[in-house]
C-alpha cells in the first residue's frame, strides 16, 4: 500500500493539475496552449490540416496575381492561367487535357504498396487530371475559408464590441442592421456574384465574409454587455482611460475565447457553404475551380465515374472535420468549466482488477 501511493499522486497530478498550475502564475496563453495540446483529436486535426495545405500548395503550385482566367499562350499555343505561375512538383496542370491513360479514366492510385501512378485520382471524359484539379480546388476552398474567417471575425468583433460597449441608439442600429444581414439569403448574393463578376474564389470569399459575421457579432455584444459592468472597467475609466483603450486593452482580451472558438467554427461552416453554393452553380464557377465546383461539374457522371465525386467530397469532409475538431479543442482550452474529471471505476477498470487478481492467484 505504501509503495503504491506516489504512483497515485503522479496520476492525480496528470489529471487535474492544469487547474492547480494556474496558481503558479502562468499567462493565459500558456494555460490555453497546454490545455489545447492535451486534446488529442485537435492536435491530430491540426497536423492533418497542415499536411493537406502543404500538399495542395506544393503539388500543383499556385498562381499569384492576374485575373485567374485561362488564356492561350501566343508562342506555344498552349493554355495557361493568367498571372504569375509558381510550378509545383506535380507535372500535370489542372486545366489541360491529357490522353486517357486507363480505359474510362479510372484512378491509378495504389494504396499498398503506395504508387500514385500516372493519374492517381483518375481522369474525366476530356482527360483532365483529377488529382491536379482536386489540389487546385483545395487551394481555392482554403483561401475562401481563410478570408471568410478573417473578414467576418474582424467585422463581427467590431460590430459586437461597439454595440455592447456603447449601448443606446448605436446598439439598436447595429443590431437591426445585423438582423437585416441575417435575412439576406446568401444564394441571392451568390447569384449576383456568379452572373456579374464571373464567380472567382476571392470575390466569393469577400462576399461570404461580409455576410457571415452576424452570429459572432451577437456573441461578442453579449460578452461586452456583461464585461463593461465589471469593476476593472470602472477602475480603468476612473484612471482616465479613453473608450478605445478600454475596448481594445481591457475588455477585448477577455472575450478572446469566444471570438477564437467561434471564428474556427465559422471557418468550418464557410467551407460547407462555399461548396454548397458552388454545387448549386451560384458560387465559384468555371474556369475557376473549387471542391464544390468540381462535384457540381461532374454531378451527372456519378454512376459511370464515381471517382470524380469521391475525392473532392472526401477532402471537403476531412477539412471541415479538422477545423471542427480544432474548434472543439480551442473551446475546451478556453472554457475552464468543461474540465475533465478523473474517471472512477467503470468496466475496464473492473476488468483490469479481475485480470490482476487472476495473476495474483
Amino acid at each position, binding site marked *: 500500500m505504501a509503495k503504491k501511493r506516489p504512483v497515485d499522486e503522479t496520476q492525480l497530478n496528470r489529471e487535474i493539475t492544469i487547474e492547480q498550475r494556474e496558481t503558479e502564475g502562468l499567462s493565459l496563453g500558456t494555460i490555453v496552449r497546454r490545455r489545447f495540446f492535451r486534446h488529442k*483529436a485537435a492536435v491530430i486535426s491540426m497536423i492533418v490540416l497542415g499536411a493537406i495545405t502543404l500538399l495542395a500548395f506544393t503539388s500543383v503550385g499556385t498562381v499569384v496575381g492576374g485575373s485567374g482566367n485561362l488564356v492561350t499562350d501566343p508562342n506555344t499555343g498552349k493554355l495557361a492561367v493568367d498571372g504569375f505561375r509558381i510550378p509545383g512538383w506535380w507535372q500535370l496542370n489542372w486545366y489541360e487535357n491529357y490522353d486517357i491513360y486507363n480505359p474510362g479514366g479510372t484512378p491509378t492510385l495504389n494504396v499498398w504498396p503506395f504508387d500514385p501512378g500516372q493519374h492517381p485520382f483518375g481522369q474525366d471524359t476530356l482527360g483532365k487530371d483529377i488529382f491536379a484539379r482536386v489540389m487546385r480546388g483545395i487551394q481555392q476552398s482554403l483561401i475562401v475559408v481563410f478570408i471568410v474567417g478573417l473578414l467576418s471575425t474582424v467585422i463581427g468583433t467590431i460590430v459586437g464590441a461597439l454595440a455592447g460597449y456603447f449601448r443606446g441608439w448605436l446598439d439598436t442600429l447595429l443590431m*437591426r442592421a445585423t*438582423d*437585416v444581414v*441575417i*435575412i*439576406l*439569403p446568401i*444564394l*441571392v*448574393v451568390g*447569384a*449576383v456574384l456568379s*452572373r*456579374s463578376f464571373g464567380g472567382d474564389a476571392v470575390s466569393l470569399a469577400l462576399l461570404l465574409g461580409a455576410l457571415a459575421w452576424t452570429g459572432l457579432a451577437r456573441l461578442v455584444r453579449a460578452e461586452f454587455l456583461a464585461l463593461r459592468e465589471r469593476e476593472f472597467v470602472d477602475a480603468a475609466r476612473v484612471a482616465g482611460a479613453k473608450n478605445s483603450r478600454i475596448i481594445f486593452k481591457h475588455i477585448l482580451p477577455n472575450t478572446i475565447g469566444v471570438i477564437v472558438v467561434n471564428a474556427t467554427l465559422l471557418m*468550418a461552416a464557410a467551407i*460547407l457553404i462555399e*461548396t*454548397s453554393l458552388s*454545387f*448549386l452553380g*451560384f458560387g465559384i464557377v468555371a474556369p475557376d475551380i473549387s471542391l*464544390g465546383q468540381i*462535384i457540381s461539374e461532374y*454531378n451527372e457522371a*456519378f*454512376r459511370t465515374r464515381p471517382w470524380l*465525386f469521391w475525392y473532392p*467530397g472526401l477532402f*471537403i*469532409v476531412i477539412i*471541415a*472535420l479538422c477545423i*471542427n*475538431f480544432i474548434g*472543439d479543442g480551442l473551446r475546451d482550452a478556453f472554457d475552464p468549466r468543461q474540465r*475533465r474529471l478523473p*474517471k472512477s*471505476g*467503470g*468496466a475496464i477498470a*473492473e*476488468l483490469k482488477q*479481475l485480470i490482476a487478481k487472476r495473476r495474483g492467484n
Partner: protein
Amino acid sequence: MLSFIVRRAAATLMVLLVASFIVYQLTAISGDPLMELRGSRDPDIQFRIQYLTEILQLDVPPFIRYFYWLGGAAGCLIGQCDLGISVSRGEIPVTEALSGAIASTVQLITLATILSIIIGVAIGMTTALRQYSGYDYTVTFFAFIFYSLPIFWVAVLLKEFGAIQFNRFLEEPYIPPGAMTVIALVLAVAVSGIVGGGLKTRVQSFIGGAVLSVVVMIFLNLTQWLKYPALGVPGIILMTLLVASVVLVLSIGFNQRRGLIIVLGMALVAAAMWLPGQYLFFYIQGPLGILLIVAIMAAIGVLLGIVFGGDGRKEISRAAGITGAFAGLIMAIDEALQYWSEYLSLIPLNNGYISTIGAVTPAIKRQENMWLSLIDSYAHLILPTAALLIISVAGYTRYSRASLLEVMNQDYVRTARAKGLNERTVVVRHAMRNALLPIATIVPVDITALIGGAVITEQVFAWAGMGALFIRGLNAVDVNLVMGYVMIVGLMAVIGNVIADLLYSALDPRIRVS
C-alpha cells in the same frame, strides 16, 4: 408582454422592409429576365417582349419598381395579397406558386424534424449520462463527422448509391451470416455502451443485445419481412409493449405495480381493438379514421388509468393515455401495411421500392386510396428524410449532451440524489426537464429555418418545394418569385425567434421578456 410583442413587430417590419429592398435590387441587377427571349428568332417575339416589359414594368428602374411591388405586398396586411406574377412559372400569381411550394416543403421536413429531435435528444442525453465512456467518444466522433458532411454530397451518395443498393437488396431480402454477425456485434456493443454499469452488467447486456438482434434478423430472413412487411396482432402487441416500456421509463418507472399493469395492459387492449379497428378503417375513409383510432385508444388508456389507477391515477392515466395514442398510430401503420402488396403491383418495376425522385407516383395517385398514397409518399420521403436526418441529428446530439451535462452538475441535482431519490427520478424528473429547456428554444428557430427549404436536398431529389422554387426564380431572374420567397422566409425567421423568446420565458420563470 403586449408591449414586448408590439415593439418586436415594429422592429421586425423595419428590418423586413430594408432587407426586401436590398434583395429586390440585388435580384434585379443579377441578370436580364428577357435574356432567353432576346436570343430567339421567332417573328412574334417582339410582341412577347413588349408584353412582358409592360406587365413586369421592366422599363421602370428597379429602384422605383420596388415601391410598386411594395404597394402590392402591403395589401397582404388587409388580406388582399398581390405579389405579382411569376414569369418562370407560366405567369401564375406568386401567392399561388408559394402556397403549393410551402405545402410540399412542410411535407418534406415534418418527419425529418420530428425524427431528428427525438433521435438526437435521445442519443445526446444517453451520451451525457455515460460521459467519457467508449459509447460517448464513439457518438461524439460520429456527430463531428456528420456535422462536417456537405449535405449535397450525402444526398447524392444516398440517391445514387444507397437507394440503388437498397432496392437491389429488397428484391431478394436475405441477410447473409457474415453481415448478420457484424450487425449483431455492433448493436451489442452499442447496447452495452448505453446500459453501462460494471463488468457483469456489461457482459449481460452485450450477450442480450447480440442474441436479440440475431433472433430478429433470422426472423426477418425466414419470413422475408423486409419485402412483405406486416404487423398483424402479434406485431401490434410487441410494438405497443415497446412504446409502453419507453413511456414507463420516462414517467412512472417500473416500481408501481398498478401503473405497470395498466400501461403494459394497453398492448392487450390494442390487440382486442384490432378487429373493431378493421371495421372502423373500412367505414371511415381518409385521415379521420386515423385520428379517430388514436383518440379512441388514448381515451381508453386515460379511462383505465382513472378507474384503476388508485392513488397515482393522475400520472398513470397520463402514461396510459400516451401509450394508447401511440398504440392507435401503430394500428394505423398495420392497416397501411396491409396494402403493401397492392402497392408493389402498382409501382413501375424499374423504379424500385424506394423512389429517388419527386413526391408521388402518378399511377398511385390515380387510385385515390389514402393508404396507398400514404405508403407511396413515405417511400418517396425515405431518402430526403435520411439526408436531412444525418445532418440535423448531429446538431441536436451535441446540444442536448451539453445541456444535460450542465444540468447534471447543478447543486439541486446533487440535493435530489442526497435526499435518496432513485437515479431514474433524478435524471428524468429533475435533470432532463430542465435540460430540455434550451432545446425547446432551438426547435422553433430550426423549424422556421427549414421552411425556407432544404434547398440542396430538394434540388437533388427533385422535390418541388420552397428551395426548388427559389432556385428556379433565381435562375430565371424572376424577381417577383424570389421576393415572395424572401418575404415568407424572413417572416418565418422572425416569427421563430419571437416564439423561441416567448417559449423560454414561459418555460423558465427566471427569464422575463421586456
